[in-house]
C-alpha cells in the first residue's frame, strides 16, 4: 500500500517536473522572442489546471498515507496554485494573460516561480524515491 502510494506520487512528481520544465522553456521562448505572447499564454494556460490537480493529488496522497512531513511540504505549494488560479481577475484570459505578461516584470516573476517549482519538485522527487525504496524494503 505504502509503496503503491509512493510510486503514484513519484509518477505524479515526474509529471510536475516535466510541466515545470515545459513552463520554463515556453517562457524563455517568449523572453527570446521565438514565440508570441498570445501563443505562449494559451499554451501555458492549458496546463495550469493539470498542474494544480497533480499538486493537489500528491498532497492528498501524502495526507491519506499519513506522511505528515511531506504533506506539510506539499500543502503550501498546492495552496499557492489554487490561490493563483482563483485570484485571476474576471477579465483576464487565465493565469497567464498575453496582454499583461510583458508588463510590470510579470514574465520574470513567472519565470522565477517556474524555477522555484522545478527545484521543489526535484527535491520532492528524491524524497518520494527514498520513501518508495524504503517502503519496498519494508514490504
Amino acid at each position, binding site marked *: 500500500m505504502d509503496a503503491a502510494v509512493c510510486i503514484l506520487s513519484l509518477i505524479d512528481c515526474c509529471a510536475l517536473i516535466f510541466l515545470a520544465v515545459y513552463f520554463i522553456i515556453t517562457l524563455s521562448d517568449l523572453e527570446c*522572442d521565438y514565440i508570441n505572447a498570445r501563443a505562449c499564454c494559451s499554451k501555458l494556460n492549458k496546463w495550469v489546471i493539470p498542474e494544480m490537480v497533480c499538486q493537489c493529488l500528491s498532497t492528498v496522497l501524502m495526507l491519506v498515507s499519513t506522511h505528515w512531513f511531506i504533506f506539510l511540504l506539499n500543502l503550501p505549494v498546492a495552496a499557492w496554485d489554487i490561490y493563483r488560479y482563483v485570484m485571476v481577475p474576471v*477579465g*483576464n484570459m487565465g493565469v497567464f494573460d498575453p496582454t499583461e505578461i510583458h508588463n*510590470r516584470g510579470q514574465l520574470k516573476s513567472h519565470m522565477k516561480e517556474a524555477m522555484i517549482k522545478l527545484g521543489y519538485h526535484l527535491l520532492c522527487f528524491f524524497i518520494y524515491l527514498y520513501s518508495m525504496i524504503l517502503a519496498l524494503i519494508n514490504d
Partner: protein
Amino acid sequence: MSAPVNGYGQTPAPNGGASAPRQTGPVQTYTTTYPAVGYYGAPPQQRNNPTIPSHCMGMSSKAPVTNSGHHVNNYYQNHYHVAPTSSAPPPQRHAAAVPSSAPPPSAHYAQFQQQHPPYATPRAYYGQMAYHASPAQSQQQQPTLLPAPPSGPGAPLYPIISYPSAPGTSQYGTLVSNQTATTPRTIQYSNLQPGSTTTAAMHPGYNVAPSTQMASAVNGQGSTTHQHYDHQASYGGTANGERPPSGTPTTSVHSSPSHHQGTQFGYVANSGTISASGPTAAPSSSSSEDDEDDDEEEEDEEAGGDTSSSTTGSASPAPNSYDSLEEGNYPDSMPPSANMTNQASPYGSYGYPTMQPAYGGGPTPLTDTQASRDLLGPSGYQQYPQPFPSLSQLSAALGGLSGVPELEVEALRPVNLLQERNLLPSKPLQAPEPNLSSELKKVNCSPQTFRCTLTSIPQTQALLNKARLPLGLLLHPFRDLEQLPVITSNTIVRCRYCRTYINPFVTFLDQRRWKCNLCYRVNDVPDEFMYNPVTRSYGEPHKRPEVQNATVEFIASSDYMLRPPQPAVYLFMLDVSHNAVESGYLKYFCESLMENLDKLPGDSRTKVGFLTFDSKVHFYNLQEGLSQPQMLVVTDIDDVFIPSHDSLMVSWKESKELIKDLLTSLPAMFTQSRETHSALGPALQAAFKLMSPTGGRVSVFQTQLPTLGAGLLQSREDPSQRASAKAVQHLGPATDFYKKFALDCSGQQIGVDLFLLSSQYADLASLACVSKYSAGSIFYYPSFHHIHNPAQLEKFQKDLERYLSRKMGFEAVMRIRCTKGLSIHTFHGNFFVRSTDLLSLANVNPDSAFAVQMSIDDSLVDSSLACFQAALLYTSSKGKRRIRVHTLCLPVVNQLSDVYAGADVQAITCLLANMAIDRSVSSSLSDARDALMNAAVDFVSAYKSNVSNLQHSGLVVPAAMRLLPLYILSLLKQRAFRTGMSTRLDERVFAMCEFKTQPLQQLMRMVHPDLYRLDNVSDQGTLHLNDRLVPQPPLLHLSAERLSRDGAFLMDCGSVFYLWVGKCCNEMFIRDVLEYPNYASIPTNMSCIPELKTLLSERVRAFLDWLQDNRAFSCILHVIKDDTSANATFFQHLVEDRPESGSSYCEFLQYIQQQVS
C-alpha cells in the same frame, strides 16, 4: 497618408493630406526641379505638425460644413422625400433580405426608392463642392510652400513618393471593372421568396456577386483626375503666394549654427520624385501568409536588415545617373547607386517663402549646408569657414560636458513651495532640453515625438531609486509631421547585431565602419551608403539624411512585407437599436461620412463596408452595378455568418453612388425600430469575418450595453456609489470576450475603434478592451442626444471629421530599442505587446501616444550617452510599406543633482498617471491615489535628504520640479482618480483610457488647464506668425482668487475651451468680442465667438486660433456666465481651490510637509 479622392482631385485630408493631390503622376517633374523646397520650407518651430491640419479643420468645420449642411438639406428636400420611412423589417427568422425601405414587407431584396435621376443633381453638387473646398484646403495646407507655382502643389509633405493613379501594386489587381455589364442584377433579387431559409436566402447573395468582381477595380477616371489635379495646382499656386507659412523659426533640427535666417537656408533638396512603380516589384516577391504574422513580421524586419549588409558590394555609385531614375526604383534591376539618388529629396530647406530668392541656386546651396554640418571633418564642399568638430572633438562633446550650466543652475534652484506662490511660467511649459552638446541637441528627436521623464539618465538603478522618480518614455510616433525626410533606398542600413537603424548618434570610426550607439558593436558601411544623394558626392556617409535626422522615414522593400501591403479597408458598424435611433446620432454620422467620404485615406484599392445591428445583424450589399443598396439580415446571432462574401466590402470608388444612397437612406430606415436589444458581440464577430482576409479598420458605434449573444454584459454600476469615497469597483473588464476578440483582431491586422454614445451605463471598462488591445481609439460621448445635448453633438461631429480624414497606418509594428543596459518593463497605451520590445499595432493613427516605463538593468558607467530608438513599420493608406524611425539621445549622469536638473515634470506626471491607472485597475483606486501622493512625498523627501544642503524649514524642491505637487494634486482631482464627487463609472473609465492614449501636450492641458485673462489682452509679447499677430496673455494659476468679476477668462482644457465672463465684465469686451450689448443679454449656451472687425475681437480670435492650431481635434468653446449653473463645470477645473471634498493646494503642500518631516 491621406485620401486620394476620386482621382486625387478633391479635398484631401487635412492632416498632411495636402500631399495627396500633389503626389500624382504629373507632379514628379516638379518635384525634381523644385525639390522639397516647400516641404522643408516648413518653419522649424512648427514641428508640432498638427498646426496646419487643425487649422485647416477649424476652417473647414466652419465654412464647408455649413455649406454642405445646406446642401444636404437641399438634397433631402429635392430628392429624398421619395424615400419612405417605414422600414419595419419583416419577421423572418432566418437570414433573409429585407426591404430596407418602403415597399411592402413581403418583397425581399426590395430596392431603395430612390431612382437614379434624382441623384444626378446631388452628384453634380458634390463635384462642385469638392471644387470649392479644394482651394480653401490647399490654401490651408500649403502655407509652407514657396510661391514657385509648380513647386507649390508639387512638393508634397513626403516628396519622394508619388502615387500614380493606378498604383503599381499589381496583386490587388488593376482590373478595370467590367461590372457595368452586370447591371440588371437587381431583378434577381426581387424574385426571392419571403420565407426562404437561411441557406436559400443566401444563395442569391452569392450569385449576385461573381467572384471576379471582388478584386477592387481601379478607377478609370484618369481624365477627371487630371482635371482635378490641375484645378488644385492652380489654387495651390495662388495659395502659396497668399499664405506664407505660419509659425516662427525658433528652433530647427536642421539648421546649422552658421546659418542665420534670412541668409541662405540650407539643403534645398534635389530630387524628390520617383518610385511611381517602386511598389510594383516589391509586393510581388513577398509571401502572403496571413497567419503567424507575429513572428514573421519581425523576421521580415531582420531580413530587410540583412540585405542591407549583403547588397553593399555590388553598388557602383554613378551620381550622374540621377535623371534616369525618375521612372522609379526597381530594386533588382536598377543599379543601387541610381536608387540612392532618390533618397535625397526629403531634404529641403528651412526657409520661409519670403526668403525665396535665396533658393535660386537650386541644389547648389545644399552642398554648402551639408558641408557645414560635416561631423567628420573638412570636406571639399565646405564654403563656410565654421570649423566643425572632428571626430575627437565630437566624442569629447558627447559626454554632455559642454552643457549649458546656467540652465542647470536654474533648474536646480531650490524653491520653497510654501513661500513661493507664483510657480507657473508665463507661457505653457516647454520640455526641458537635454544637457547635450549643441551638435547633438540640434539633431535630437523632437520632444513632441519622443520624450523621456528624465532627460539625464541616471547611471545605475540605485541612483534612479534614490531619485524616487519614474524613468520612462512618452512616444507619439505617428504624429502628423510637417517635415519628414523620406528615404528610398535599396539597403536600409542597420546594425548587424541589434538591428538598430543607423541614426545621427552612431559613431563613424572611419569611412568604412560605424559603431552602433545601442549595442556598441562595429558595423561596415555599405558601399551604397557611401554615396550621399544630397551632395551627390561619394565618401560622405556621415552626411546622409539618415545620419542627419533623428526622425526619418524609409520606404521599405519587400523584405519588410509578409504579404502585399494591404489596401485601406474601412468597416462601419452602426448600432440601430431603438436607443440609438432615439439618440439621433445616425443622421449626423451619415452626414459627416458623406462629407468626408472623399477624405478617407486610401487609394484606388480602398474598400468600404457597412454593417448595422440591433438584435440582428444587417449587412449591406453595395456591389457596383446594383441600382440601390440591398440589406441582408442575419438573425442567427449565435452563429453569425457572412451572407455574401464579395459584395459587402466594396471599392469606395466604384460604389460611391451606392454608398451615398445608403448613407442618405440609413437614418430614416430605422426610425420605426422598436428593437431595444443590442447584439454587439455577434456583430463584432461578423465584422471580424468580413475583415480578416485583409485587415483594416472597424469603427463601432454603440449606444448601450450589449444585451444579446456573445459578449453580453450586465450593468455593474451602482448609481448610489458614484460619489462614494470607498473603493470604486468594476474598473476592470467583466468578461474576457472583448479582450480575446481584440487579440484575434490584432492578429488579423484589424483595428477596432469604439464610439460609445450612451446615456446610460454601458460598461466601457469591458467594451474598451476591444480597442485597447487592437490599437484602436476610444471616443465617449456621455448623455449623447442630438437635441438635448448640443455640446456633445458638436464634439461628436468635430471628432468624426478629424477621425475620418486623419492619416492611417495599417498592419503596423513598433519596436522600441534602447541602449544596452536599459530595458522596458511596462507598456502603456492601446496596442498588444507581442514580445519584449515589439508592439503590434493593427492600425496606427496620428493621435495616439504611448508610454513605456524603463528600468536600468546594467550600470551605464561605460557610456556617456543613452539612446532610444522607436521604429514604426506600417503600411500607408496608399499601400506603401514604410518605416518611421525616431531616435532620442540623452546624456547619462552619475549625480543625483544632475538627474533632478534634467527631470521633465510634465512627462513624469503623465507617466505617474499611467502607473496609477494600472494600480487602480489591478489593486484599487484608493491605492492608486495613495501611490500618487506618495510619489510627491517620496520625491520631496529624497530631494531633502540627498541634494538640498540648505537648512530650509519649508518644503523645498528644485525649480525644475516645482510644479510636481501641483500636477499631482490636479491628477487627484481628475475624473479618473477623484473620489467624493459623483463620477459615473463610464466617465471614470474613459478618463483612464484617455490618460493612456493622449499625447502629452493634450494630457497636460486636461490635467492642468491653462487659464488666461482675455478682456485686457494687450500687444505685449505678441507673437508674430507670418501675417498673424497672436497676443500672448500670461498664464494664471488655477484658483478662484485669480479670477475677478470684472474680467473675462479663457480656460483651455485640451478638448474644450471655457470662456468665463464675470458679472461686471467690462461692456467693451462683451460688445466687441461677443457682440452683445451687456452682460445680461449674453445667452447661456453661447458656443462660438462671432467674427467681428474690432481690434479686441481680432486679438481674441487670433489667440484662440493659435491655441487651436497645434491640436488634432478641434475644440469646442463654451461661454460661461458667472451666475449660471454651468459655473460649476468651470470651477471644478480650478484645482488649487478646495473642492467639496478634497484638499486645496495649500493643504496638500502641508500634507506633504507633514509626511516628509
